[in-house]
């Protein structure tokens, strides 16, 4: 099924042709990327196109679902059951997974994965969001680090961390959260600049 020239149904059951350009403009509008004349022109199109408006609402609702899932991740009550599955999902792997998903979508649809968002498949999409979340929890990390270091992934919540990787001789890896406080580093004469 091709995305280009796809027939969409407006709220009254009338089919309206969407072209690729419209899809792109819709996403750009949704992402706040349209400005100036292009923005005003598209807003006029939205006013006159119930189908476009419906698609926009769908995009927004899916964004809400995704945000709700993300906020659910941070809920303390959920943290214990999922425990340490979160570290398996670093940003790089998530990005790779999303790229992979886009690749699949492209393979399946012949279009960029992002455009599939516009499809009016609300319930399916919600299920897919949930499925993605489940997959994220269950994924087992195994990045293909060629150098084979001990630390494969880390999240320090934005704080600086010093990692002293073992070269095989010492048999030790040090992961040091830098807080600028006492008892560490060159500020006190240690061998490492941890300020």
């Amino acid at each position, binding site marked *: 099924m091709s995305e280009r020239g796809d027939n969409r149904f407006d709220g009254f059951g009338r089919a309206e042709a969407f072209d690729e350009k419209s899809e792109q403009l819709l996403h750009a509008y949704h992402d706040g990327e349209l400005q100036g004349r292009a923005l005003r022109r598209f807003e006029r199109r939205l006013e006159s196109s119930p189908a476009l408006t419906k698609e926009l609402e769908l995009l927004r609702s899916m964004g809400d679902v*995704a945000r709700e899932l993300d906020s659910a991740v941070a809920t303390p009550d959920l943290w214990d059951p999922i425990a340490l599955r979160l570290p398996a999902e670093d940003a790089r792997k998530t990005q790779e997974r999303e790229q992979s998903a886009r690749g699949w979508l492209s393979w399946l649809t012949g279009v960029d994965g992002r455009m599939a968002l516009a499809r009016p498949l609300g319930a399916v999409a919600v299920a897919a969001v949930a499925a993605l979340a489940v997959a994220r929890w269950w994924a087992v990390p195994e990045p293909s680090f060629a150098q084979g270091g001990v*630390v494969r992934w880390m999240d320090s919540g934005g704080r600086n961390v010093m990692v002293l990787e073992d070269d095989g001789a010492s048999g030790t890896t040090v992961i040091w959260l830098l807080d600028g406080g006492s008892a*560490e580093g060159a500020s006190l004469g240690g061998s490492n600049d941890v300020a």
Partner: protein
Amino acid sequence: MMSHKRFETRSGVTGVRGLGLLAGFLPVFLAGAAPAPAAAQVQGIGLGVVVSHISDQPGRIDPRGQRIHQKLSAQIRYQSLSVLQTHQMKLGLNEVRSLSLPNSRSLRVRATDIGERGVLLNVDVEGSVQTDLRVKNGHLVVFGTEPYDNGKLVISLEPTW
């Protein structure tokens, strides 16, 4: 000799996009994310955990922390080291073990895979760092965590199997 890396990591969940047709290939997606099979010959991983406190206040080096001190003193300056907790636990694959730290935080550890390159550990030092580590048998991993009692809380992990 150790190699030094310094970096800042950032948490956050990437926005979910491109979802409309995910359900169509959901089985494929989930299959790709399924846990890797465990090494059958390993029944469990022993994990030694030592929780210590270091400080720049003059004091003794706790004999129980001698091994950590040997590894750490060349890299980090401190004048005293006290061992606060020692634990020896058995980890089954994908089993989460948790213990309470002196600063009322918790340490959570899970082994998710074991192979020739070592055991893959998911470690969460609550409030400090979450990390995935591929650790060889007997390798010592030392975490310098949050400030604690005019010093720093240090957690060392040593998996054996």
